[in-house]
């Protein structure tokens, strides 16, 4: 136990302002956190739905919860059920095999809900486009409030996008 606590102590709190080289993005992270929560005045819950991605976007969505971005520590939480969610964060392209599941998840999300399409594929179908197997963009299947392009979008771009979607609803 003591070595473990020592390691935690040595690591310190990384979410605080960090060395000069990281100063730019870190300030931006703090500002975004504050603004999101100021607008919401409470927690935001997100249900992530992978509707056909290559899993690149998921890697960056995972990164949102690392100590640098610390999204959950600021009250923005990923939840297990769409029934508990304010926002659907959907990666694509939406495959035909996931079309039905995405519709069900959308219907299960209580109103008022926000839908954010993530990644070039979620925004437009990306390199995969529309085909016998792919519906392409998320908006071809469910209504979308905001798009976050990128292949994959960086964690910072994801945070900015989540904020923009929340701001639009205010």
């Amino acid at each position, binding site marked *: 136990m003591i070595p473990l606590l020592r390691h935690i102590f040595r690591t310190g709190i990384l979410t605080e302002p960090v060395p000069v080289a990281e100063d730019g993005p870190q300030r931006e992270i703090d500002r975004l956190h504050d603004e999101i929560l100021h607008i919401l005045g409470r927690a935001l819950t997100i249900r992530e739905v992978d509707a056909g991605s290559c899993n690149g976007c998921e890697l960056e969505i995972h990164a949102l919860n*690392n100590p640098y971005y610390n999204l959950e520590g600021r009250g923005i939480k990923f939840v297990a059920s769409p029934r508990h969610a304010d926002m659907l964060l959907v990666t694509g392209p939406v495959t035909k095999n996931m079309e039905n599941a995405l519709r069900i998840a959308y219907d299960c999300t209580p109103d008022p809900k926000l839908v954010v399409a993530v990644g070039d594929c979620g925004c437009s179908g990306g390199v995969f486009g529309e085909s016998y197997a792919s519906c392409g963009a998320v908006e071809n299947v469910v209504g979308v409030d905001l798009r976050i392009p990128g292949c994959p979008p960086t964690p910072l771009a994801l945070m900015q996008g989540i904020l923009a979607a929340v701001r639009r609803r205010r």
Partner: protein
Amino acid sequence: MFLCDDSSIEFTPQAGIGAPVWRGHVPSGEELKTFAAAVHLAGGRLAAIWGSDERQRGGGPSAGLRAGFRLHCVFGLESGHAWVSLDLPADEPVYPDLSGIFPAANRMQRATRDMVGIATSGGDQRPWLRHGAWPADWYPLRHDAVHEAGMGVGFQNFPSNYDFVQVGGEGAHEIPVGPIHAGIIEPGHFRFSVVGERVLRLEQRLGYQHKGVEKLLIGADIGRGARLVGRVSGDSTCAYAWAYATAVEAACRTEVPPRALLLRTLMLERERVANHLGDLGALGNDAAFAFGLTQFMRLKEDWLRLNQQLFGHRFMMDRIVPGGVATDIEAPALSAIVEQCAAIGATVKQLRTLYDEHPGLQDRFATTGAIDAALARELSLTGMAARATGILLDGRAHRQGYTPPPPYAALGVRPVTDERGDVAARVAVRFGEIFESLRLLREIAVGMASGETCAEVTPVAGAGGLGVIEAWRGEVLVGVQFDADGRLARVHPHDPSWQIWPALEHAVMKDIVPDFPLINKSFNLSYSGVDL
């Protein structure tokens, strides 16, 4: 050749400097089966199966056969890979079921039937990739599979039920999970048959990520092919890009500059470390050790930020291209890599001690989700999952009769194995492989060659090639065939998860439902990579 010298198959070695591949042709389905049995007897494994429509290209090399379809089987042997093809008539494209010899053939055969319409004469006939989004008699990878602008947009989507194997008996019941899972993870369906908390049986149904990659690759040029193959599984983008590049370079007889090879190795090993770091954190988390997740995710973020700084992309997508690499790095970048390896290595060493000495964590890891080497061989496993049962199989390392492709041959990779076969073993192998990759990265950075970073690639009409890369999960293969106009006629990317998914079905059988997330994570398989 290296196996069955009495066989009628003539093998020719593939050109180029990639992992050793021999290409041969069998005249009949029966002889394919005989060859497969011989491979099995020699301790070999099934590496991949796919099909292609050759009706436009004219007949195959077998005399007297009408132009039809071609079945491709790749087998892994001690000394390298045997790529065997079998021509099938257009009117009755049927071949013998190989799943009796190699159980791993099951899903690959069903996918081949769904995609190209060539089927086995017996065995499991349930659809695999086709869930009802397109008609059963329409095969996406046939050249005449044209429907509304060629891509088949506009079919009615009728999601079908799947014929899961039912488990009966008193108290037995089913837990259906997915396709949308509870975490931030790819979709797939797991059907558990349980009594109380004990898992009697798990059956997977995948295919939800099927987005028609192989169809898009037909007729694409080399550059678009690279972008598509680099997005088959985002966490393995470097491995796929390299395997594809190797296949194209073998077909086009391209000579890759030594500096490009070393830069590719830098990227592949950085990809391996990034994924292992993330997995070690997630494995701690799944055993309620959130400390582990936080610590490893911080290291991973540092790692990805340096990727961004050096290669212009956090996952190095589109940086490995046929001919070489699309990016170069300067001398200061190499010292940044050496410095980071030292810093991260020291921290991971401390974390390993904390993991090893944490009784709660070890209690969850040890004996959980165990498979043994005999099962791993039976299922044709490769990669980390195989090495965690004690099998010494790593495409980057020397073994008897096998010399790894450059630059690995000169680097002297020391493969990491662990004989326990459980979650603890897969954790231990990841730790070991991080240290080994850090050592390789330092060695490459110090001994970086100078010179060009990319050679020109001229497509060769009708040529083909197979690229094999030892990715962080296991063996990634990409088969490439050019058409008469020098465009891609057929590309098949193959993920090691094809073989490892069935091993997960076995690994959970002795355990309880709440251990499933931990066991699943310990394999961390790709959905997109097998759904294509």
